């Protein structure tokens, strides 16, 4: 498994660059994904999406559908894309330390 170094921390990632172990997630990982995803500035809304994704994943063991993410955060779909241009299933899940969603994604 490849590793990435960022902010003085080391992360093992899977073949798609998603963090290999959910429990190794940290704010340094968030900053790393921000850079990778080309997100200019990280704000409270990004953190809110990340928090909602992690909370859902801890409870359900899988990423939520976008509808759930929109309902819980109160963000419209277009706004979620403004926050995460590569999409909620990719960039946002990656930043939140979730595994890459399975299936045709």
């Amino acid at each position, binding site marked *: 498994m490849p590793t990435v170094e960022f902010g003085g921390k080391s992360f093992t990632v*899977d*073949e*798609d660059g998603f963090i*290999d*172990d*959910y429990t190794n997630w940290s704010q340094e990982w968030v900053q790393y994904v921000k850079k990778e995803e080309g997100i200019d500035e990280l704000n409270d809304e990004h953190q809110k999406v990340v928090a909602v994704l992690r909370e859902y994943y801890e409870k359900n*063991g*899988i990423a939520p*559908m*976008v*509808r759930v993410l*929109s309902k819980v955060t109160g963000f*419209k*779909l*277009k706004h979620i*894309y403004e926050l995460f241009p590569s*999409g*909620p*299933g*990719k960039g946002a899940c990656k930043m939140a330390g979730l*595994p*890459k*969603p*399975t*299936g*045709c*994604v």
Partner: protein
Amino acid sequence: MPEGILCNKQVVDTKEKLNALLADKSGKQYYAEMKALDIDSKALWATLEKTCKSRLRTWLEICAHCGMCADSCFFYLANDKDPKQVPSYKIQSTLGEMVKRKGEVDNDFMHMVMDTAWSKCSCCNRCATYCPFGIDMGVMFGYVRGLCFSQGFVPWELKIGSGMHRIYNAQMDITTEDWVDTCEWMAEEYEEDWPGLEIPVDKENADIIYTVNAREPKHYPEDLAEAAILFHLAGENWTVPSQGWEETSLAMFAGDWGACKIQVESVYAAMDRLKPKRMVVTECGHAYRATVLEGPYWAGLKSGKTPIESFHYVEWVAEALRTGKLKIDPAKRIKEPVTYQDSCNYVRNAGLGDCAREIMSYIAEDFREMRPCKEHNFCCGGGGGLNGIGLYRQARNIGLTVKRDQILATGAKLVVAPCHNCWDAIRDLEEVYKIGIRWSFLKPLLLSMVEVPEHLKPKDE
């Protein structure tokens, strides 16, 4: 007979089993258990005796080892013409050996078969068009996948995918309520820009029943909204079913034939229940193959056809442009060089290449064909489920080089890819090889250039 807790010969048909698999990140335990999995040779031989006959057995026996299939295979080309990537070698060394040995094979052999069936063949069927006898190794590897599945040798993500179909009638965890809620949500969010926009659910006797890929409600709901807007602009009388809306089949990629039948029957039941005139499926290649081309046989329909006439999205778009239901603003056509990725599943396997060209003639000023193209086009590199299998990421990325070089040769920086699998493969190709291209489905492109009838424009405009 050692059976793993996660990796075994059973199907995934409960949420408990599914959740246990999902919790095993990247399938670490699953693949470790697979190394100890015993082969039920008796059952394997019984299946071969019962099902590997007539066409398949003849194909195995008449292969002249002429090698004509070699250059037809993108894996062979991408791997420096490795003889082990010649389609006839791949099938003879797997299915051929299984038959010769009357099913007496071991764990190492089955691992090799699994690796070959999922990482060295995307079931694109291109070899069949070059074999002098018409031997279709893609069809044969589809069959081999079923044998592997029955013995528990199937990539972790596809075991999950086929389980999803059994539990949710969809390749992802989406309930009827989730789906209907997403339809309502999308209509509501986009209604501001498109007054009167609706996503009608369970409307009877509509002209069109629209079916999708579960990834759309789960991860990309804008795709559903875009389809709705285009139907709205075209004035179509359409609907989506509350149940039976999912047309894809990871079960087909997995070789879980029981799940294939369950899935496709849910779609056919929606057709029977709502009595629409015809079905249109979203921009997905394998969904079309599963539900329209193969599904009738899984469901045992004697006609060999879907209960109602079924169309791929490119057929609907071509028709809408031809009949003027959708009109393109000439000033907004694509000016830059643009190419088109022919999906194996609806172009090579269903002959819809001309629809694609017709569409491009309306929307693009500088359309560049890939070479080869249409039914001779190469697989995107990620078909047959390969995009979604982490274990074979390296093999997939090597295979992508054929498509990369085809795209580069066109000089186009924009690739139209009306198939989710192709779209993903081209996105990943750009991520890995950074050749500076963009990629798109048809829907967003059409929305950027379609003329909006006066009565459908927002009032404040």
